[in-house]
């Protein structure tokens, strides 16, 4: 798409990144942001993992949309994740399109954008890149790794792959595998992109036209899964959009149609269609238990020292409580200390991004205890 406004690091220059799919990638560029200062003991780093279409701008203005950071409610000076105390890192995931290597980037072998020649990646591949970024930043271990939705899946892969680098881990509204329904919704999105004549088998970067219609439909479909029926009813009901009666045509008569069209059309300004294919594929391939003979707990055998917290939301039908509880049981069975609650919230899957007081209470208590047990006391730079 375009290089990130912000920090970038070039990794895997000498040793290529070996992907789960078998391909090698070298070099790998990572777009990232940091907030706060790493203390002398290098013990106050927190990695925040973003969701499917998220980015590294967790607590600073998005360079394309100009909107505030996606979790500024939680992350910042004096806030719940206090950047006066902690060194917060957030990087754009592998395959995405805000400064990190993905299908939009030039393939060094051909000098042209990768397109669909880009290798298919996994959530664990994303985490491998994050681990290399930590090396680059001279951070050996994290006080906490935190993520919701696809971010939570990255946290799970951290627990499975690099537990020795973790002190605590927070997973919000997530799952250790994609279900048939999860894959089904993603497939609709991908087919919408591929059905757009501008997609051109993924080789659209120099054609002057992008598969915006397809990507917008993909976003509209996905967006429905982030909400709940109650939230949609409360927000829109059957209200009409700027008219007194239905038009007996196919304009956006209903407010909900207008809202979804808006979500779709603004999304294409900040996201690359091929990146959407790759990142949704990575989600679909996630099945951590599958790698361990069906026993999820076996994935967490090395994580018995990591303080864990799992939170689900009552109205989330994308990654519902039962999927989150599966994680809790597996952690328990592996002897990993874990706290869990299902929090009452009406907003659907997106609850983890919204103002939910009970989530804040729980996170605040958990992070304070994590800092205490990490030997961090109050005060700036402590």
């Amino acid at each position, binding site marked *: 798409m375009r290089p990130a406004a912000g920090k970038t690091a070039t990794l895997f220059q000498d040793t290529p990144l070996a992907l789960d799919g078998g391909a090698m990638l070298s070099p790998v560029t990572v777009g990232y942001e940091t907030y706060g200062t790493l203390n002398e003991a290098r013990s106050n780093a927190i990695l925040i993992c973003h969701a499917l279409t998220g980015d590294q701008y967790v607590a600073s203005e998005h360079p394309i949309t100009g909107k505030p950071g996606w979790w500024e409610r939680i992350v910042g000076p004096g806030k719940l994740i206090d950047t006066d105390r902690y060194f917060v890192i957030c990087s754009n995931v592998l395959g995405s399109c805000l400064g990190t290597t993905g299908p939009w980037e030039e393939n060094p072998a051909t000098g042209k954008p990768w397109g669909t020649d880009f290798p298919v990646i996994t959530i664990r591949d994303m985490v491998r890149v994050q681990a290399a970024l930590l090396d680059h930043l001279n951070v050996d271990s994290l006080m906490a790794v935190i993520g919701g939705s696809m971010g939570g899946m990255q946290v799970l892969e951290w627990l499975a792959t690099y537990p020795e680098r973790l002190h605590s881990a927070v997973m919000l509204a997530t799952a250790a595998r994609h279900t048939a329904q999860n894959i089904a919704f993603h497939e609709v999105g991908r087919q919408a992109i591929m059905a757009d004549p501008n997609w051109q088998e993924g080789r659209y970067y120099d054609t002057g036209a992008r598969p915006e219609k397809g990507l917008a439909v993909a976003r509209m479909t996905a967006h429905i899964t982030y909400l709940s029926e109650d939230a949609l009813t409360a927000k829109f009901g059957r209200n009409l959009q700027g008219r007194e009666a239905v038009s007996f045509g196919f304009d956006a008569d209903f407010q909900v149609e207008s809202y979804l069209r808006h979500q779709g059309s603004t999304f294409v300004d900040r996201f690359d269609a091929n990146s959407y294919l790759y990142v949704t594929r990575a989600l679909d391939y996630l099945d951590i238990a599958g790698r361990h003979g069906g026993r999820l707990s076996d994935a967490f055998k090395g994580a018995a020292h990591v*303080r864990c*917290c799992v939170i689900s939301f009552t109205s989330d039908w994308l990654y519902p409580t039962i999927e989150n*509880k599966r994680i*809790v*049981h597996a952690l*328990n*069975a592996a002897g990993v*200390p*874990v*706290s*869990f*609650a*299902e*929090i*009452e919230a009406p907003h659907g899957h997106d609850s983890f991004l919204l103002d939910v007081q*009970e989530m804040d*209470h*729980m996170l*605040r*208590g*958990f992070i*304070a*205890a994590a800092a*205490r*047990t990490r030997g961090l006391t109050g005060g700036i730079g402590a």
Partner: protein
Amino acid sequence: MNLRKDLQLIADLVPANARVLDVGCGDGELLDYLVNERGIDGRGIELSQKGVNECISRGLFVVQGDADNDLEEYPDQSFDLVILSRTLQAVHRPREVLLDLLRIGRQAIVTIPNFAQWKVRADLLFRGRMPVTKSMPQTWYNTDNIHFCTILDLFDLAEAEGLKVRAFVPHMRNGRRLDMGPKLANLMAEQALFLLEK
């Protein structure tokens, strides 16, 4: 740290270095004491969000859930000791819960309010209405207690299921111990603690 006296009775029976699961751990007072004063590896289960949040703020590990629905998810013999304090009378299937406690843990500590205490008997006898006492302050229609039992009832159940009573501590609500056998305690004690083993 001043532990509530009735909780102290439980804490006194927890062996050093035990792995403990406190089912219905409330605000985490007992767990906090066990973990932070006694260095015990303790986990909790609590239904209320408020209790969960308080436990987490204390740095404890607690999973939201209740005795009726969530015990089955814990592996066999994964704890040395499972605690169920003043909750057995409020679950739907007390017998199954009791057996589950001893499936998960090698030992279980169960405390119950005693429905056969003389004040309760007198209240029922003379008022002719479901007893409302200081240790059972709720009325019949809003009480959480759906399976009231007495000290002798619990001894009977333990015997029927082949469970050994390793310790029996009848006491008052304020935690004062009563030094007496089961039959007299059944008349005098407001509540009782049982340390059970398979």
